[in-house]
Structures are given as structure tokens and as C-alpha cells.
């Protein structure tokens, strides 16, 4: 019960922090991503690159046939994510997370993070 309450508070906090004004113009155009599509995957984080211009999340997703697909998800810059409430260790290798993202127009396994749901229910905006 305590865990659920904490999750609810974290969700509220994340929603509030998500409303903080942050730069909308990025270091590159996001036209490589299909903003009209949203894809959801669940998998295990294999690597997290805490770098600028973008934080990158590598995630292994096992499909119904048991095959592992390796996705690379681009997020915003460290500076923007910190303003939105992310911490350095918010997402760690080994975490099982759910990612909603705009897929690459090329169809390759990658995309632009919209939101990540952590094991404790916290939702982090990209």
C-alpha cells in the first residue's frame, strides 16, 4: 500500500515536473522520427549513456518468438532531463522498463523517447 501511494506521489511529481518549461528547440531536427506514431516496448536496459546532446537508452526487447531486438532510444539533453526531474540514476542497466517512443521513420529499431515507466511506477518524460 505504501509502495502504491509512493508511486502515485511520484507519478504526480513526474507529471508536475513534466510541465516545467524547457527548451523546445533542439540541437538537431527530430524529423528522423515519426511523430505521428507511438510505439510501446518493454524490456531490460542494457546501457544508459548519460551524455549530451542526448541521453541514450539501449534496451533489449524479447519478442514472442524469443528473439532479442536491441533498441536505441534517444531522449532529450541531460540539462533538459534534469529540469524535468530526472536524476543521474533514474534509469540503470538491468532495470526492466516500459518505453513509449516515436519510432524512426526508417523502421530500424530506435526512436525518440516520449515517456519511460520505471519498475516502481515512476513515469519520466523524454
Amino acid at each position, binding site marked *: 500500500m505504501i509502495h502504491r501511494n509512493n508511486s502515485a506521489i511520484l507519478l504526480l511529481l513526474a507529471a508536475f515536473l513534466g510541465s516545467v518549461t524547457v527548451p523546445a528547440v533542439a540541437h538537431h531536427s527530430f524529423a*528522423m522520427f515519426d511523430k505521428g506514431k507511438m510505439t510501446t516496448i518493454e524490456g531490460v536496459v542494457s546501457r544508459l549513456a548519460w551524455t549530451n546532446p542526448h541521453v541514450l537508452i539501449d534496451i533489449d526487447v524479447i519478442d514472442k518468438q524469443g528473439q532479442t531486438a536491441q533498441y536505441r532510444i534517444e531522449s532529450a539533453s541531460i540539462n533538459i532531463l534534469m529540469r524535468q526531474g530526472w536524476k543521474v540514476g533514474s534509469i540503470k542497466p538491468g532495470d526492466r522498463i516500459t518505453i513509449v517512443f516515436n519510432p524512426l521513420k526508417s523502421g530500424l529499431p530506435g526512436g525518440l523517447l516520449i515517456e519511460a515507466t520505471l519498475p516502481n511506477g515512476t513515469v519520466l518524460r523524454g
Partner: protein
Amino acid sequence: MTRMHLGAIAVVGTMLALMYGCCKVKSPSVTPSPPDIAGTWERYPDDWAGPDPDNPLPPGGAFDLQESYAAAYAKLQKRKAAADAAGAPLVNASTRCLPEGMPTIMEAIYPIQIVQSSGQVIVLAEFLTQTRRIWLDEKMPASADISPSYNGQSVGHWEGDTLVIQTAGVRTDVSFHGVPHTAGMRISERIRKTAPDMLEDRVTLDDLPVFRKPYAFTFQYKKSDYRISEYICDNNQIRVDAEGGGHLNLRSKDD
């Protein structure tokens, strides 16, 4: 009052006048403090870039370019639209982690901090950890003495509440919203507070070989209590194809 009294008063008066004259400490010449524009500033309003942040609107309206530049600009816009549709947007200097240069640094896609120091005003941009220096009360060096740079050579002075700046020597590979410029471009700026928490920068680009008339616009900023952080751009995330299109570097077997 006797003559003696009058004489005494005259003597004392003379002495006081002399004392005042000889001992008056000359007050040091006080230079008036320049207006305070220091602090962290963020662009205002929030939607300054227009409806599509991927394609920010030119701040002074459509560019009025000389014929050859207008043709090149139209061609670039066409190429850009095609590249965007194909999911391989054309890379620019920022994509390659290179500085934005003038006047784009003042566009402040991330917050900027203004520092007022002796003889200079410094603009620190969070994006790419860029630094721009404006030298106060100095003459613009001769063109031959200016080494071309991303932000150029800026000299400024105060006119009342306004910091008036001239900039020359911006590298010719720096572009502004896709518009290039010649080595002779001059940028004029007038920076002033319009309210205690509001700042404006009135910018004019003067480069007649490119613009049919000086191109003018105003950047507005709102004061912020945000603390600027380091932003070093690791140029390792985008792969550039032969046509100049950018692709997300995907994972390789070595990752």
C-alpha cells in the same frame, strides 16, 4: 554692534572661508554604474520558435534576400523538406556540436547568463557551453586585425539604459536560419531592460550583398532563477550520410 564686533566676524568669516577652501576634499569623480542586465535569461514567450520547433520561424519575418541568395535559400528549403520527409534531416553546425555563432547564440534555445565585468559584458550560453565577449568602450579593430570567429568581434558602449553593440568578423561558414553572410556583415544590437525581469535585444543584420535591406528583429528574454549547467556536446550520436542527412547512430555488435 560695534566696529570691533564687525571686525571679528569678518576675520572669523574669512578664516572659515579659507579653511573650507583649503581643506575641502575633492570628491572622487564617480562613474555612474552601468544598468544592471546581469543574470540568467530565458527566451520569451515560451513559443517563440513558432508551431514547429524543428523549423523555428525567422525572427524578423520572411528573409528579403538578393536574387542569388534567394534562389539558394529556396533550394535549401526544398532539400530540407525532402530530407525531413525521408527521416534524414540535414545536419547543421549544432548537429555537429559546433558553436552556433552570432547572432544565433543570442536566440538562446537554452538559457543564457549575462555577466557584467570590468570592461566587458559576457554572455554565457548553456547550450554547448558557449562564451561571447563584448568589449566595452573600445573601437572596432580594422577588418585586417580581426580573426574571423563564430561570435565575431563585439564592441559596445552604454547609451543611457541601452547597451549598444557592433559586431564584425563572424566566420562565413556560420549561417542564420539557413541564410549565409559575407565577411563584411555587421551586426548591430541594442540591449536593454524593458521591465525589472524582462530584457530585449534589438538586432540588425547589415549585409547588403545578401539582404536587400538590413534584416531586423527583436529577441525578448525573461529573468530566470535557473542555474546553468555544463553542456558539452559529445559528437557521437549522429551519422551523416553523403547527402548531409543525419541518422541516429544505432547499436553495433561492439556496443
